[in-house]
Each structure stands twice: as structure tokens, then as C-alpha cells.
């Protein structure tokens, strides 16, 4: 390949292809993290974020996550691609579950891998802030001890503000 073309591609194309999965099944955070690092000797930092379902003081039996199938995958892939462009990453995984998830179970996983800790921390933080406000998922509560399904979780102004930290 012509060297000038190769340089142009290196500047515009992210060095890594993030792994994005939307699934009902549980995930294995440790296995995802070690898959990114296995066989490499150039990684310095791995940041793993796991988001879990809380029982909200014993009030909740479960959360039910509805999603927009095609767009959920596409939107998280866009956010992950932006993270890969902004931060010098060696690997990035994002997994988001849907369906009924009980307290103590995992909802979302982000793993960011980089030579240095700052990029890994910032990429994971960025991913979560943008996932919260851009990924088409909606949580509905299933209160404990009631036959009826509960209400939809409201979006938080603090999540909008958190995402705004990254606007540039």
C-alpha cells in the first residue's frame, strides 16, 4: 500500500474495532477482560465497569429492560467507535443485557484496555455516560409483592449533565 494512503487511514480509522453485544444472557466480565489482554505484553491498564440491578432498599423484585434491537447495537457501536477515536485504546468491549434482570444481577459491562491508566479510565467513564443517554434501553420496575408491573424509570438530569462533560 502507498505509504501516504496508509498514514491517512491510520489517522482517520480507529486502531481497534470495539466488541459490542446486546443480549438477554448473563455475561462473564472476567472472561471478556482476559480475552482482550490474552497473549499481549503491551497492555498497561484494564478498567472494567459492571452495572448491576439494585433492589432499591428492598422495594424491587426485578427490572425489565426493553430495547430497540437494531438501534441498540448500532448506537452502542457508534459510542464505542467514538471512544476508540478519542482515547488510545488497545481493546474495548461493551455488553448490554435486556429482559428481566433481578437485584444483584449484571446489566451492563464495559472493559477498556490501554497502555496507560488515564485512557482506560476515561474511555470506560465516557462509554457509561454516553450509554446512559444514547443507548435505546428503557427500564421498568417490578415491585416486590405486587402482581402488577410497576412504572417506567425516569431519566435523570444528572445523566444528561454527565454526558455533557464530554462534549467538545
Amino acid at each position, binding site marked *: 500500500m502507498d505509504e501516504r494512503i496508509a498514514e491517512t487511514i491510520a489517522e482517520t480509522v480507529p486502531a481497534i474495532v470495539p466488541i459490542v453485544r446486546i443480549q438477554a444472557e448473563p455475561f462473564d466480565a472476567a472472561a471478556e477482560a482476559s480475552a482482550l489482554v490474552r497473549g499481549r505484553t503491551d497492555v498497561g491498564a484494564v478498567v472494567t465497569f459492571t*452495572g448491576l440491578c439494585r433492589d432499591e432498599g428492598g422495594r424491587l423484585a426485578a427490572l425489565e*429492560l*426493553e*430495547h*430497540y434491537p*437494531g*438501534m*441498540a447495537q*448500532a*448506537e452502542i457501536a457508534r459510542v464505542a467507535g467514538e471512544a476508540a477515536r478519542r482515547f488510545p485504546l488497545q481493546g474495548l468491549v461493551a455488553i*448490554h443485557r435486556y429482559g428481566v434482570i433481578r437485584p444483584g444481577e449484571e*446489566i*451492563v459491562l464495559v472493559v477498556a484496555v490501554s497502555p496507560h491508566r488515564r485512557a482506560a479510565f476515561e474511555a470506560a467513564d465516557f462509554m*457509561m455516560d454516553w*450509554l*446512559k*443517554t*444514547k*443507548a*435505546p*434501553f*428503557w*427500564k*421498568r420496575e417490578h415491585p416486590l409483592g405486587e402482581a402488577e408491573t410497576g412504572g*417506567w*424509570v*425516569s*431519566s435523570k438530569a444528572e*445523566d444528561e449533565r454527565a454526558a455533557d462533560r464530554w462534549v467538545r
Partner: protein
Amino acid sequence: MAVKILYFAWVRERVGKTEEVVEPPAEVTTIADLVAWLKGRGEEYAYAFENETVIRAAMDQLHVHRDAVITGAGEIAFFPPMTGG
């Protein structure tokens, strides 16, 4: 122009369907126009879109603003602010 509309979460519950194909008249050119036109179709729509500025829209699986032009869209979705993550 026929366009597929998807509804999610409480917008879906209020409209009472997950998706439908509609044929709005030619003067409906933006997301805002489409919302106004849908609201005229029945009280379930009027209820779903009663607080229009809260509802988010996506066109062909991309987030769009109310003034986005819908001409040529294959799939338009309406939903509340997202609460994933």
C-alpha cells in the same frame, strides 16, 4: 409516502401498538409534522404525545431532532428518554 413507525416503552403502551405502517400526506415533512399528524389520528396518540418535547425520535436507527426531514426514511421510532446503562 408509506413509513414504518415503531413505539417503545410508555409511548408504545399509550399508543397501544409496537409498530405500524402509516401514509402521512405530502405536507408532513419533518418529525414535528409527523407527531402533529399522528396526534390527530386518535386519543391514544394524543395521550402518547401529550408532552411532545419529552418524546425522542430516531430515523433509520439514528437519533434525530424534531426538525429532521423525514423524506426517504424507512423506519421512524418514538420513545421516552433512555434509561439504559
